[in-house]
């Protein structure tokens, strides 16, 4: 019955279609009769065991080629019916072993399905597919996982590193491990103190192993990678036509580590310049596969990004260090300048005092000294701000300080206005102006009596012009006919002239007032 070629009339065509289908299937298919004799095999099945159907006739398949792996299958007698060896329940994939005619054992998985006719089992369809050995498969998977992990770790590590030496060492180690090389080296170009250098790191060999040899030059073997950025992979570099062309060694120098398999991969920056090259060697032939080339190329790409980052970082660090040095020097110069200005003012003060001693009256002497000290105080304020703009309110306080103690100053002098910064030049001039106004108020104006008050108000206009008003009130009556003293001149002409501003002094019996307007007081250098 179980003969696929023998059937009802008109079925011949259908049978040949069926045969063709089976023959094209990639899995091996066996049809067994109840005695487990094979009555049909497709071509994949013949290829699997190496026997033809004729050669199997009269013998159970078990005897020739097929063995189940399960305990039950082993125990069963070879002549038992199919149900024992291929139980009815086994629609599931099972593991087994096929013995090929040439004596080789192949692990397989198979499914067996009983064929029923009128309630009886009349045979079994066996479908068999070769597997790689389980242990081998696990090993391959583990290897793959290890490679992926190393690649991933290397990538993450490189991304986090900015130190050049650490990067190149990590790259060399990862690439050597993953490529399966006996040893590897990373030759990379750096610029140190303006000089271009080629440095290298090693993995799998001590530094002494290469110390005696010159650096790779642009020879026929190295040149393509170092100069043109080309990958070279050779199963046996000694047989490569480019090998041994260059003097002096015409190949490897004596006592060089043995290299047969050779792989060199360039590390290229994003702008196309070549950072260097990763070079690997192994004493055996044919070690580096296309896969190792791909892995190393991937690492080289990661390395390139890391090296770019390291170079940028180093440049930034140098820039910062340079700037800090300049700033420190500048601070030193400013400090020295301040010191000299102070000493010069002290010397001028001493010269004037010794010159005028006994020749000028006490008031003149004091006026001079106060002016000099006012200049010095304004200067101190600017110094404290490192020659950057100073606060207007603070400048006014400085001018009042020698004449009023803090408590009475707060009551009698009112300062009212927004925070405004004054360039050093403006601060010095306005500081002198304030001093003249205060000194005048003490001698002739509102501060001559205990009741007098001074209101100083300022505001900034849209065009950055500073408007400041000085109003003295409730002081003793003012003697309106006063001369054109230095103080007044300094205010009216000096401020206006030096700062391009306008100053109006108004003398009234009720008290003196002064209006000052200065264009953009923060602007001057």
């Amino acid at each position: 019955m179980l003969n696929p070629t023998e059937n009802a009339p008109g079925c011949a065509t259908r049978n040949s279609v069926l045969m063709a289908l089976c023959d094209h299937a990639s899995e091996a298919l066996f049809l067994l009769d109840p005695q487990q004799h094979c009555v049909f095999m497709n071509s994949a099945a013949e290829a699997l065991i190496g026997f033809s159907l004729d050669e199997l006739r009269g013998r159970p398949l078990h005897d020739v080629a097929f063995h189940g792996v399960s305990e039950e299958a082993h125990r069963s007698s070879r002549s038992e019916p199919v149900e024992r060896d291929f139980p009815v329940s086994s629609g599931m994939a099972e593991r087994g072993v096929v013995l090929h005619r040439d004596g080789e054992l192949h692990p397989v998985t198979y499914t067996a399905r009983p064929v029923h006719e009128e309630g009886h089992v009349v045979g079994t369809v066996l479908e068999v597919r070769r597997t790689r050995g389980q242990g081998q498969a696990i090993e391959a998977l583990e290897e793959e996982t290890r490679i992926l992990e190393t690649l991933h770790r290397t990538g993450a590590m490189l991304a986090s590193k900015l130190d050049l030496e650490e990067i190149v060492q990590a790259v060399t180690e990862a690439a050597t491990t993953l490529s399966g090389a006996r040893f590897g080296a990373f030759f990379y170009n750096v610029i140190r103190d303006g000089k271009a250098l080629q440095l290298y790191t090693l993995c799998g060999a001590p530094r002494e192993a290469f110390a005696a040899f010159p650096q790779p030059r642009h020879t026929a073997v190295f040149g393509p990678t170092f100069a043109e950025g080309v990958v070279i992979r050779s199963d046996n570099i000694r047989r490569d036509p480019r090998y041994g062309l260059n003097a002096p060694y015409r190949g490897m120098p004596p006592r060089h580590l043995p290299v047969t398999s050779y792989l060199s991969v360039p590390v290229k920056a994003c702008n196309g310049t070549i950072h260097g090259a990763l070079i690997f060697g192994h004493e055996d032939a044919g070690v580096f596969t296309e896969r190792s080339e791909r892995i190393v190329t991937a690492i080289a790409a990661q390395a390139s990004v890391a090296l770019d980052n390291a170079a940028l970082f180093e440049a930034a660090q140098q820039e910062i260090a340079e700037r800090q040095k300049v700033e420190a020097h500048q601070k030193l110069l400013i400090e020295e300048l301040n010191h000299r200005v102070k000493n010069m003012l002290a010397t001028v003060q001493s010269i004037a005092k010794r010159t005028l001693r006994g020749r000028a009256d006490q008031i003149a002497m004091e006026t001079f000294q106060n002016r000099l000290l006012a200049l010095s105080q304004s200067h101190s304020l600017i110094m404290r701000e490192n020659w950057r703009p100073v606060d207007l309110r603070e400048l006014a306080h400085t001018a009042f300080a020698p004449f009023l103690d803090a408590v009475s100053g707060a009551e009698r002098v009112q300062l009212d206005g927004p925070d405004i910064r004054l360039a050093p030049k403006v601060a010095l001039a306005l500081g002198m102006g304030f001093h003249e106004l205060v000194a005048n108020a003490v001698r002739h104006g509102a501060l001559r009596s205990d009741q007098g008050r001074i209101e100083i108000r300022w505001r900034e206009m849209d065009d950055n012009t500073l408007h400041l008003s000085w109003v003295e009130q409730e002081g003793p009556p003012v003697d309106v006919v006063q001369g054109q003293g230095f103080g007044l001149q300094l205010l009216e002409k000096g401020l206006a002239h030096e700062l391009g501003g306008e100053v109006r002094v108004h003398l009234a019996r009720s008290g003196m007032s002064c209006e000052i307007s200065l264009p953009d007081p923060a602007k001057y250098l």
Partner: protein
Amino acid sequence: MTAMSLRGLRVLLVEDEMIVCMDLEDMLRDLGCIVVGPAARMHQALSLIDREPIDLAMLDINLGCETSYPLAERLAMLGIPHFFSTGYADIEPAFRDRPRLQKPFSETQLSSLLIALRGAVHSP
């Protein structure tokens, strides 16, 4: 009145700039002090400290190619009150607790500081 309270106070004057030094001598004498020195160099000042009785010392910081910080240390060791008169705004951190007069200064500023320090001379 201030001059009275400073009368007879022996003040070591350390200042290397000639004109300023002469002026300071005048100022100290006007206040009734006795000027010890003046010294323009550290070794001069050190030998004055060893030889002369000193109530108080007034130190310029920058003495040409040396500074007066070691003098301040020596004076501190001897318990002699002292202050810096200097054009420098910034001084060594270890000496920032010392009183200081920023040059240029007025007689009033000088006498106030001397009076304040004279208190220290007589306190136990």
